[in-house]
C-alpha cells in the first residue's frame, strides 16, 4: 500500500514550502513594519527603508563586494579556522589529563573573562594594523568557547565507552579520532557556534579601529561621510552575512551531529 510516489513527493515539497514560510514570516513582518514606520521619515539618521533599499545595489557593487566584503570574510575565515583548530587541539590535551587541567583552569577562567575587544589595542602593539592583527583579534576571541567546550566534552566521555575502546585495543590516533572527538563533538559544535557570532563581531570591530578596507571599515566611512542610507545598507548586509553563515553552520552541524539528534530524539540512551 502507501501513498503514490507523486503525491508523496508533492507532500515533501509542501512541507519544505511550509518550513520556508515559517522561517520567513517573521522577518517579512519586521521588514514591513520598518518599511511602514520609516516611510515618511525626514530624519536624516533614520531614512525610509525604501531609500535604503534603493541605494543598496549602487553601494554594494561587484567591486565593493570584492574589495571590502571578501577581505572581511577571508579574515574571518582565517581567524575562525585558527581558533577552531587551536581550541580543539588544546582543549583535547587539557581535557584528557587531570593534572594539566588543574594547572590551566584558573588561567583559562581569567582569560575567558577578558572581553575580546579589549585585546584589539594590545594586539595592535604586537601585530601592527594589517591583516595579521585582525586575524589575531578574531582568533583570540573565538578560541575560548571552542577550547572550554572541548575540555568539557573530552572530559565527559562515557566511561563505559572508554573502557570498551580500551578492551578492544583502540588506542592512540584511532581512539582520538573515533572515540574521544566524536563523543565530544556535540559540545565542540556548541562552542563553534558561539565562536561564530563572536568572530563576526570581532571582524567588524577590528576593522573599525584601523583598516583600509572591509565591511566594518566601510560602514564607519559611510557614517563619517554622512552617507546615512549607505551606512544602513552596510548594516543590513552584515546581518545577511551573519544569517548566511549561521545557515551554513547549521547544515554542517546537521551532517556531523545527525547521530546525536537521532539519539536524543530516540530518548533511549542507556538501560
Amino acid at each position, binding site marked *: 500500500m502507501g501513498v503514490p510516489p507523486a503525491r508523496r513527493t508533492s507532500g515533501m515539497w509542501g512541507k519544505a514550502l511550509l518550513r520556508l514560510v515559517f522561517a520567513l514570516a517573521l522577518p517579512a513582518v519586521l521588514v514591513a513594519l520598518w518599511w511602514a514606520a520609516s516611510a515618511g521619515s525626514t530624519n536624516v539618521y533614520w531614512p525610509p527603508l525604501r531609500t535604503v533599499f534603493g541605494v543598496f545595489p549602487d553601494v554594494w557593487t561587484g567591486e565593493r563586494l570584492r574589495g571590502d566584503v571578501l577581505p572581511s570574510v577571508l579574515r574571518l575565515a582565517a581567524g575562525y579556522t585558527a581558533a577552531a583548530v587551536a581550541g580543539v587541539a588544546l582543549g583535547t590535551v587539557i581535557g584528557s589529563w587531570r593534572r594539566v587541567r588543574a594547572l590551566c583552569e584558573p588561567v583559562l577562567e581569567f582569560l575567558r573573562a577578558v572581553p575580546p575587544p579589549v585585546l584589539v589595542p594590545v594586539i595592535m602593539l604586537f601585530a601592527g594594523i594589517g591583516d595579521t592583527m585582525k586575524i589575531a583579534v578574531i582568533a583570540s576571541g573565538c578560541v575560548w568557547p571552542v577550547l572550554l567546550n572541548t575540555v568539557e566534552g573530552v572530559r565527559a566521555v*562515557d566511561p*563505559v*565507552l572508554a*573502557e*570498551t575502546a*580500551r*578492551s*578492544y*585495543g*583502540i*588506542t592512540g590516533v*584511532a581512539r582520538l579520532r*573515533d*572515540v574521544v572527538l*566524536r*563523543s565530544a*563533538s556535540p559540545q565542540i559544535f556548541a562552542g563553534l557556534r558561539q565562536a561564530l557570532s563572536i568572530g563576526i563581531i570581532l571582524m567588524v570591530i577590528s576593522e573599525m579601529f584601523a583598516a583600509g578596507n572591509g565591511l566594518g571599515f566601510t560602514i564607519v566611512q559611510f557614517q563619517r561621510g554622512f552617507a546615512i542610507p549607505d551606512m544602513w545598507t552596510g548594516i543590513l548586509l552584515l546581518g545577511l552575512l551573519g544569517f548566511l553563515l549561521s545557515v551554513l553552520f547549521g547544515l554542517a552541524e546537521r551532517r556531523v551531529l545527525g*547521530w*546525536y539528534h*537521532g*539519539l536524543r530524539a*530516540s530518548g*533511549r*540512551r*542507556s*538501560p
Partner: protein
Amino acid sequence: MLDVQGLHKVYEGSGRRTEAVRDLTFSVAAGELVCLVGPSGCGKTTLLKCVGGLLAPTAGEVRLAGRPVDGPPPGMAFVFQEYGRSLFPWMRVGQNVELPLKQKRLSRQRRRALVADALESVGLADAAGAYPWQLSGGMQQRVAIARALAYEPEVLLMDEPFAAVDAQTRAELEDLVRRLWRERGITILFVTHDIDEAVYLGERVLVLSASPTVVREQLKVDLPDQRDQLHTRVNPRFAELRTRVYEQVQAAKRGR
C-alpha cells in the same frame, strides 16, 4: 587457558577503602563455558575487569595461555553489563563491529567478511546500516556480541550481559550464546546473578561469596550438551543443580 591466582583487589580513593575481591583462585580450560554467580555487589564486575586487563589487581595474577595479563590482551573480548552505553552511538552497527578490526590491521576484505559473518550469526544481517539507538535493547546486546565475535577472541568475557532485557529476549540470547560457544569453540567466562541462567548456560558454575569475595563453591553442570529452554529447564537434574546453587548463594548473602 585462563588462570586466576590469589586475585585480590582493593579500591582506594576519596578516603574510602573497599576490599572488593579478597582472594580468588580458579582456572578455566580452553573451550570451556564457565558461569560465575554471586550476590549483587560482590565484586563480579571487578573480577572480570581484572581478568580482562582493564583493572590492575592489588595482588595476585591472571594468566592467559601462560602469559600474565597486564593490559587488555588481543585474544580477549569483553561484553559489558551496560550494553546500551558500550556501543558507539555515532557509528552504524556495521562500523561498530568493524572498528576493533581496523585496529587489528586486517585487510578491508577480511574485515567485511568478519563483520558480515558476525552479524549473520547473531541474526542481525540487515541491521548493519542502522544506528545502535534505533535498535531494541536485545538487538543492541546482539550487536555487542557480534562485535566481540568478529574480533575472533580465544576468550570471551561477558558481564551480566542479559540483566536488562526482558525474559523472552533473554532466553533467546542465552540460546545464542550456547550455540555460538558450541559452533566456535570459544572459551567463555560468563558472569550473572541469575542462578537459572548460570546452570542453564554453564559447563561449570562458580559460586562467589559476598564481598570481600572468595570462591565459595565449584559445581560441575552434568546436563546434556544439547540444551533447550523447554526441556532442560524441567529436567530433574537441572532442578537439583539450581537448588544447590541457590542454597549456596543464599548462604553467601548471609555471609557465612
